[in-house]
């Protein structure tokens, strides 16, 4: 399990923890109402994009396998975020 911790710096993984913290706060306290759901969806989309750029273009991991796993995970997160944003925008235009 220790190969997971071999990396040049810990800034990016700490950013993921901060992202998860705000996601947990938003999900627990601001869900249910339409405006806050939009905020949550755009938060996931925006942060997912930043995290994907961090782990795909400037990966801190020196082990190639670990780097790939993080890149795939962040890509999945970004894809989910983009789908949520598209669904939200689509519903917005349907209502209009």
């Amino acid at each position, binding site marked *: 399990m220790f190969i997971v911790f071999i990396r040049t710096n810990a800034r990016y993984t700490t950013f993921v923890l901060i992202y*998860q913290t705000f996601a947990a706060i938003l999900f*627990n306290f601001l869900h249910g109402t339409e405006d806050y759901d939009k905020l949550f969806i755009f938060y996931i989309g925006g942060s997912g994009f930043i995290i994907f750029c961090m782990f795909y273009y400037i990966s801190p991991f020196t082990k190639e396998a670990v780097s790939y796993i993080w890149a795939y995970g962040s890509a999945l997160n970004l894809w989910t975020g983009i789908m949520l944003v598209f669904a939200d925008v689509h519903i917005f235009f349907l209502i209009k």
Partner: protein
Amino acid sequence: MSHYIGLPFTYSMMYTFLKLTNWNTYIAFFYIFAGCILLTIFCLFYISYNDRKENSKSSWTVYICKNLLFLFITIFFYPILEYMLSLMDCAEIKGVYYHSAFTQIQCWTSLHILHSAIASCMSLIFVLFCLLISLVYFEAKMNTRDYNSKY
């Protein structure tokens, strides 16, 4: 279809399991998690205090501390944080606030205030502790055999 695809991911969260039980079990697990966090913090203090006296790098406290820290900053970070914050997740029904998962529990009355206060303090401690450990607990050298790195 999407419901069935998402189901395995939903069940990785502890909150999803434990909200199907009763309120007492839910609270008991909350205090177990809080105890684990406090145990890890005390272990860390104990190791740093013991390090001044003698070399304790191979003791059981280091083993427990490293494994708990590994779990906290990786797979258990979001589930534990969400679980602790969900204690304060209340919904308004006819002007009165009730807990979202346990609708018989009225929020911000009697023991719920105490649980919520402890939950908010523990969440803050947990987040700050994990951020600090995440920034410190990594190995910059490409030496996989150095298991005691950063300790």
